[in-house]
């Protein structure tokens, strides 16, 4: 695998993680989670209504990161 194809996870300031690359998302019991798209945003504030994905709720709850 070339370096360019290593999956990346980027924490965006005051926002979600952004996950790029070939990663399989699974529930704790091993059930596959459909990512729906190539680039996905896992929730980081814990308040999303569509976890494990971000739904923008962090913007109305004042979620802040330290960067």
């Amino acid at each position, binding site marked *: 695998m070339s370096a360019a194809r290593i999956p990346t996870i980027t924490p965006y300031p005051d926002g*979600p993680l952004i996950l790029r690359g070939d990663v399989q998302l699974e529930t704790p019991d091993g059930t596959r989670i459909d990512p*729906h798209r190539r*680039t996905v*945003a896992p929730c980081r504030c814990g308040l999303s209504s569509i976890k494990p994905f971000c*739904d*923008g709720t962090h913007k109305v709850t004042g979620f802040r990161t330290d960067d």
Partner: protein
Amino acid sequence: MYDTAPAIRRIVVFTPRGPLSDAVLERLTSSARPELSAPADDAVRRSEDILADDDVQSALFLLYASAYGSVEGIDPGSEWDPDLIRLRRSLEEAFEAALRAQVAMPALPEPTPDAVARALFALVEADDSPSVARHLARRATAEQVRESLVLRSVYTLREADPHSWAIPRLTGAPKAALVEIQADEYGGGRPDRMHAELFAQALRGAGLDDGYGAYLDQIPAITLAAQNMMSMFGLNRRLLGAIVGHLAAYEMTSSIPCRMIAGGLRRLGFGDEVAEYFDEHVEADAVHEQIAAHDLAGGLAAQRPELLPDIVFGAAACLCVEGRAGAQALAAWDDDRSALRPGAGS
């Protein structure tokens, strides 16, 4: 040979709204060559508010429809007609001047991805336009929901297209960011997942016509202006910063409102085939807004700091014009009126 017989005009789903749009329609759909500069000058001179001017905005809409090929019956051979290009430029000059006069510009951030993204999120958060999504979530009737879908369809049946004009004008990281967003908008290789197709499905599910322009005669000037603004920003390379800023603001005002709208649709008993477009945007635009703010708008500002003022202008203009269009619809619904224009012949 393209058929340029006058009869072709019958299939264009558009009724002129004044002398200027009448002349433009004639030029785009027939071999007739009515004079354009006098009606254009007259229309601009007498207009008190270009953004809400039916004749000017519908003429501009037709001129852009010629570039997109979005409206049936427009002769492809007229796309680069010098008279029509000259006309478009003169109308754009008046339209852009009106936008720049109307849009309040915030202080500019430093041209770094982080500072630009923070400034854009702050700009969106400070926007106090009345919320159409909240009305749809809580109080709207099914008929008002259908009207909101009709208003939205001007953009969403061609979703993402105005911003795609920017792709060849960008290089490096901001280009990769825009393509990352647009690839998702266009379904990631799956035609049935294209956002425009999901919206067509929503229209059909709500008992509406999914043909582009089917309701054109009922679209108010300010809603055409919102679409024309994107087309103008996208088609003019000198406005590259503005189309990038516009996309950032558009994405940043989507995920939470779409969740509210999906809730409103279900409250009124619309099916999942109608709500799916909005469900998809809750998740997709929470991704897109990060990429658009940091990597696209912030990345472009870092790469080309001279574009920073227009990046911010494009974002502020998006909020201003979408806000006006939304306020006009809400005012109509508050009065128990339709938010649509009376259609041709009705």
